[in-house]
Every structure is written in C-alpha cells, then in structure tokens.
C-alpha cells in the first residue's frame, strides 16, 4: 500500500530572483507540512531535473540545501513523464519497505532563469543529434508533425484542437496560482501567431517558473486517504522519426497495464488529470486512454463532458496550457490538483466526485508514458 499524504504547489508564472532550489524548497515545505510530518521523518527523496541548473546529483544537492539526510535519494529523468514516474517509484519503494516517507519534488525557474530561446533550444535536444536536430525542429514542430498526421487520419480540425486550449484557460480562471487569467475563445486560438503548423501560440503551453512536491507514505499520516491503486509505464521510442504507428501508441500500452495492475476500468474513473503540453497532446492522450472515442475528444469538450461540472472533470487547475509548465513540476501540478479534489479541498473549483482518478504523463514526443490510478479510501 502507498498513500499520497501531502501535496505542495507554488503559483506558476514569474518568480523573479528565485532559483530552482528555492522553488523546490518552497513546494517541499508545503508538501511536508500538508502531510503533517517533520523534515526529519522524510527518509527518501526523488527529484527531477532543472534545465536552468543542470547537475549530475540534483537529489543530494537538494537534500543538503533543504536539510535532510535521506537513506534513499536520486534524480529521475523522463521528460514530462518525470513527475508520475517518480510517484510510481515512490509507490514501489514504500511498498517494498525501503523507506517510509518519500518526498517527490520538482521545481525550476525556467521562465526567468534563462531566455525563452534558450528553453526552446534546450528542449529541442530531445531530438536525434545527427538526424533531427540539424534540421532546426523545435518541440512544437515535433508535436506539429504528430498533429498533422493525427488530423489527417481522424479528421480532427484546428478548431477542434483550439477547444482544449479554451477549456484549460476556463479552468485556470478559477485558480489564483495559474499563469494566465484572461479568458480566451476558439477564435483567439485560431488567430494566435503560428508557431509550428498546425500549432499556434495558444495551442502551446507556456514556459514558467514554479515548483511542486508530494509526500508518498506507507500509511496515512492524516485525514487525507488517497491511495495509489496501480500504475504502469510504456516507452516505445525516443525520437519522433522512430515513433510507432498511431495504432500502437505508448499511452494505450501503459493504460492497459495500469488497468490490469489496479483492477480499475475507465468507467470507474471520476476525475482525469492528463498531460497537455500542446492541445494535440491532450486530444490524442484522451483518446488513447479511452476517455473519448477516436476523433471525438473535441466534441466531448464542446458538450461540457470535461468541464468542472461535467461527467469527467479534467485538469481543473488549468493544466500545462494555462496553469503553466515549469518542466518537471509542470505535470506534478496535475497530481496536486487531483489530490485537492479527492480530499475535498479544491474550494471554488471543487468537483462533485473525485473518488477515483486517472493520471497520465507523457515525456519526449509521446515517447515515455506513465498511467496511474488514485483512489480515496
């Protein structure tokens, strides 16, 4: 058994003057306090990476900075899937009895710590150094390629994709910590600057500063009883040139294994937290996971299915697209929001029923996948 006993999240956007370690520390402190623990009780640390401050031993750098001497610590790197991959590892570590309380932490001053160009260049390096990067692609271009093919095969339109940006923005409006607070329409998305066709500026998540953390424990430490019911990964490729056909995507493999590991079916799910680096990412993953039929996710957005009061509330904090994306912490915000929803602490954003949640993270170019089910017990 493993439980998520505490969560911590900073606002996303600009945190002028704060370093990656500062943002990690803020989030960690919030999560440990939320779990009702003292720092000394944390015996495991898993952290992600920082593109602004790369280090070969970030977990021990953080542990020393934060003042913890853990018996287990290292960094994990799976791109956007890192947060959920760390959570999966923490789950197995506490289940195996290696440690009692694992602090999972990610944070980066990606917006103010480097130029936006530097971020784009750093992230484009997920491409192949000899066969892709010299062609001048960007992360939006890798996903633009995926989008062009998906739209071609399933009849999805640019207006369909825009719906996801509008939904995430609508959700972000209810969260004071979100990077964006101005409502947008499908027309606004369509009129936004081209980035890498078919993706336009508002189809893309922003670059942000921020931090997020959770504590995963072997037993509950407080009234919040959120259990990790089961999880699984799939890694099909690294480079988009080597990606499998759309009929054998990693998300389909990882969700099938996660369902098997947890005995849960999609019809049991009441809340969804799905990686949304671009509108196409969210559209595809919802369909891969079985939360909508092929080509029909956008019509489910239009009908309110994924809205706060809909049948399957999705990323009620605004997701990467509108809460913001600070790297590893980016998708960790999805889990923090899920935890708040599951424990009835989401305030004005509270959904009716979040008793069972599905989370999914994606790293690279739909390369690495982690699917996870959380249950309130």
């Amino acid at each position: 058994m493993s439980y998520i006993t505490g969560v911590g999240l900073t606002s996303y956007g600009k945190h002028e003057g704060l370093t990656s370690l500062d943002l990690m520390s803020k989030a960690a402190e919030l999560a440990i306090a939320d779990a009702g623990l003292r720092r000394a009780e944390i015996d495991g640390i898993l952290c992600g990476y920082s593109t602004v401050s790369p280090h070969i031993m970030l977990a021990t750098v953080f542990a020393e900075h934060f003042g913890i001497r853990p018996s287990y610590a290292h960094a994990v790197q799976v791109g956007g899937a890192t947060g959920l991959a760390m959570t999966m590892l923490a789950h197995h570590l506490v289940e195996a009895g290696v440690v009692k309380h694992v602090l999972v932490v990610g944070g980066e001053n990606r917006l103010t710590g480097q130029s936006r160009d530097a971020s784009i260049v750093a992230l484009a390096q997920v491409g192949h150094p000899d066969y892709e990067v010299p062609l001048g692609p960007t992360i939006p271009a890798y996903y633009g390629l995926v989008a062009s093919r998906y739209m071609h095969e399933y009849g999805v339109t640019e207006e369909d994709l825009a719906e996801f940006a509008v939904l995430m923005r609508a959700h972000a409006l209810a969260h004071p910590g979100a990077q964006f607070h101005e409502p947008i329409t499908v027309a606004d998305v369509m009129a936004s600057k081209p980035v890498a066709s078919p993706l336009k500026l508002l189809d893309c998540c922003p670059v942000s500063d921020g931090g997020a953390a959770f504590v995963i424990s072997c037993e509950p430490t407080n009234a919040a009883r959120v259990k990790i019911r089961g999880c699984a990964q799939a890694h099909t490729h690294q480079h988009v040139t080597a990606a499998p056909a759309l009929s054998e995507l990693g998300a389909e493999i990882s969700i099938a294994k996660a369902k098997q590991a947890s005995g849960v079916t999609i019809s049991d799910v009441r809340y969804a937290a799905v990686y949304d680096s671009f509108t196409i990412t969210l559209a595809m993953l919802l369909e891969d996971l079985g939360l909508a039929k092929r080509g029909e996710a956008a019509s489910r957005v239009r009908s309110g299915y994924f809205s706060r009061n809909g049948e399957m509330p999705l990323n009620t904090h605004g997701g990467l697209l509108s809460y913001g994306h600070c790297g590893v912490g980016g998708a960790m915000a999805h889990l923090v929001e899920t935890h708040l929803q599951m424990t009835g602490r989401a305030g004005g954003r509270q959904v009716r029923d979040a008793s069972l949640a599905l989370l999914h993270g994606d790293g690279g170019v739909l390369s690495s996948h982690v699917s996870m089910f959380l249950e309130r017990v």
Partner: protein
Amino acid sequence: MDKPADWTTGFEAILYQVCAACERPQYFRRGFCAACGSTGLAEQRASGKGTVYATSIVARAATPETRAHVPYNIVLVDTEEGFRMMAHGANDLAIGDRVSARFAQFAGRLVPYFERER
C-alpha cells in the same frame, strides 16, 4: 564506427543500413540491427524517393541561424526503401504526396529537401 558519407556529414546522399539476418532497414546508423541485434549490416544509398507522412511548418525558430530561414517545412517521409526519415520539404507539401529529395543549405549545413515528383 566510421562517420558515414551522407548529408549528416555534408555529402549529398541519404544512407541507411539493411540487416543481412532479418532484412530490416534502419535509418539511425549503429553497429548492430536494432530489430534483431545482428551485426551483419550493409550500408546502402537511398533513392531519395518516398511519400510524405507528416509535415510541420516552423514559423517560430529559436536561433538566429534558423530564424533566417522561417517559414521552413519539417517533414517526415516514408522512403521507398522502407524507413522513415526527417527532412525539409517544400512549404506546399501535403501528407500522401509522392516526393523526391534534393539537397539544400540550412543554417550552415547541408540538409535533404523534398519536393513533389513531377
């Protein structure tokens, strides 16, 4: 491994490998077949003909060198020889177009550039 004499090192050629054991083609060059592990690989020169699988026109580039070229079309092409590759292409290419490659200069390097077959 020796460096290949192909576009990645400045030569006007697209090279790939074919496995003698399982006959699978592979584009990313290695000392073994990624499908079966055999080290019996033959290097071959591709015809440069293929079909467009996906396209994305980059309007926002991140370096001064690449910015000088916007908008440029990043394409994935399924080659006649059975491997997929990333390249540049004419801005009017559509998925399913039959294309053939020439070579072009991009940000100080030689890159394959696909155009519709006439």
